[in-house]
């Protein structure tokens, strides 16, 4: 192969903490310099990604079914879920806002689930298909991760601002907590995923996960 040697070929491993290139030929557990644990790959990357993603998926259901916000105007309160908010905006003609909420709150988590599942499945099957594109997909998932918090921030802001006692009050409801958890766990899931696994060569690396253990 006409390429520079990889770190694993040279039995080298970067310390995550201080950046020291450690010699792994002796299978050291810790960095020689700062005693931080040494990992060639992220620890239990696939398992954790799977676990966090499934957690997020579990929370995704109540996040969409439970009301996220209670708007009470002049004494008459009404709970609204994310989807009902989207529909309400849509019906009132504000299709742009409806679209933003829909994309940020429902589509983006959905895309993340699909993307992460795709990545996980292909990595586990050592699939060589479209590795560059999958790498791009992962970066995209990481980038859009924060934007899902839009809803949580809106509810937090509005609930803090709209406090006119009897005239009008907006209160957060349980749904927004689950929604926040969905975002947190999808981000954790994305963080647990090691994009280097995409490039793992099945021929010179028999057991990518097994090696990553230490």
């Amino acid at each position, binding site marked *: 192969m006409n390429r520079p040697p990889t770190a694993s070929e040279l039995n080298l491993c970067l310390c995550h903490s201080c950046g020291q290139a450690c010699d792994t030929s002796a299978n050291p557990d810790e960095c020689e310099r700062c005693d931080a644990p040494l990992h060639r790959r992220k620890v239990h990357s696939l398992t954790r990604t799977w*676990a966090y993603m499934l957690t997020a998926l579990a929370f995704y*259901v109540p996040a969409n079914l439970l009301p996220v916000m209670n708007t009470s105007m*002049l*004494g008459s309160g009404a709970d609204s879920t994310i989807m009902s908010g989207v529909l309400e905006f849509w019906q009132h003609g504000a299709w742009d806002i409806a679209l933003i909420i829909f994309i940020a709150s429902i589509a983006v988590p959905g895309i993340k689930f699909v993307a992460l599942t795709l990545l996980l499945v292909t990595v586990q099957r050592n699939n060589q298909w479209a590795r560059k594109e999958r790498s791009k997909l992962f970066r995209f998932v990481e980038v859009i991760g924060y934007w899902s918090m839009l809803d949580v921030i809106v509810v937090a802001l509005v609930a803090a601002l709209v406090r006119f006692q009897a005239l009008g009050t907006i209160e957060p409801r349980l749904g927004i907590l689950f929604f926040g958890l969905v975002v947190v766990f999808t981000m954790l899931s994305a963080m647990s995923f090691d994009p280097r696994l995409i490039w793992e060569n099945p021929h010179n690396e028999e057991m990518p996960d*097994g090696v990553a253990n230490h």
Partner: protein
Amino acid sequence: MASQTTDKPLPPGQPAIKTRRFSVSLVWIVPIVAVLVGISLVVHSILQQGPSITITFKTGSGLTANKTDVKYRNVVIGQVTDVELSDDQKNVNATIKLSKQAESFTREDSQFWVVRPRIGAGGVSGIDTLLSGDYIGADIGQSDTRANRFTGLENPPPITYGEPGKRFTLHTQDLGSLDIGSPVYYRKIPVGQVVAYALDADGKGVNIDVFVHAPNDAYVTENTRFWNASGIDVSVGANGFALKTESLSSMLVGGIAFLAPPYSPDDKPASEEHSYELFADQQTALAPPNGKGQYLNLRFDQALRGLTVGAPVEFLGIEFGKVVSINLDFDEKKRSFPVNVGIVIYPQRLGEANTKMLTVLKHDPNDEAGGVRLIGSFIEHGLRAQARSGNLLTGQLYIALDFFPKADKVVFDPNARPVSIPTIPGNLEQLQEKLEGIVNKINQLPIERIAGNLDGSLVELRKGLGQFNAKTLPSVQNTLADVSKTLQSASSTLAEDSPQREQLTQTLDELSRMSRSLRELSDYLARHPESLIRGRPDNAAPSDLQGPPRK
């Protein structure tokens, strides 16, 4: 470390798998917890899920899906989840999800109504809904059977939340100015209200349900009388002008008052749902009871203008009944239109007279045939009905039952029902008859003939006058002219300078002289009567009158 080096040649990952299994279980706790949380939420919501009911309203005004609450004592017990038209488009069906603890509101007789601002004469309610929006009020029922379809009330029930008190039913002829919510007064203190009203099964009266709140419901006794205290009662009596009303509110929305008569022995609080009669006013309510009424039929052969249903029936001047019906009839034999008047009399109103009569005649008031026989004997003694004028100005009539011993005998049929009392014409009718007789006589006069004769005479007279004008008058005129001429000539004859006048004057002078001579002669003869025989003595006459001396 050593174990790891020995592991190298072995199938890889044996210890790694061990450690992985350990760490895997740690990581998988997170999704397990998440799923558990989700399941707990589902279980919780299933446990919290109350029954779902459908309420039918006339309109969907104020009902919004997922917004309108259902409240009991101002606590939210459910929410409207759906509002839609009924299949026949005549009503609105509101689907309501009740909370778990509100399950008892599915009792069959639970009530639901829309609370919205209401402003009426009786008061203002539901003002808070102006701001908060309408909500559905609920009241729990008592029934043991459950239902999931209810009919919403149009108006909030006046009595809710199992308030202590008693319901009573009042029976009356018409509702008057009463309405649901009209107050019920006891000694002018509002102690309850009208909660419902409905027509009788046969539509001949109104049943009014009133609710008297505890503890004042104890004052409703079995002898209690209810009367309509609506409006203003103005009475003019010997004491002057009296105006009575329960309260300003009862003037506007009507009201009912109740009181037990002052002397009510063996009185005890009435039981729930006790039924009473609702009297028109306090006076009739507290009057002694009428007792059993007796329906009688009267047949008048005259027009009864001024007799109205409700007109009093008097017996010897004492009111003891009223007119209940006036119907025109057709008599086939006489080919006339008599008037059938139905009256109801209450003999008990005659008071002591009635009781004494009953004891003396040993008559049982419940013996119907005996009562009829009694009436028959009265009729034999001359009992007659008469329509009399009670008010000459308005011409109002009343029925008087009186004894007319001179009245024509009438055959009384004791088996006829309704019992019929013979009638005689009233005073005014008698007068009218006499007047009619006079008019008839006048009618019989041969006025036409008289008029014809008179007309002929007048024609003759006219002819005579024409003749008179044409013939007689001119000759009269001629005559008058002649007379005038005659008079003129007479006048000229008598003129002062006329010779006739002159002659006349002379003649008169002569005459006067002659008369003087005659007087002298008579005087002389009086003094010398002998001269008639002897002639005049010489000395006898005055010298001047002495005749020439006799020689």
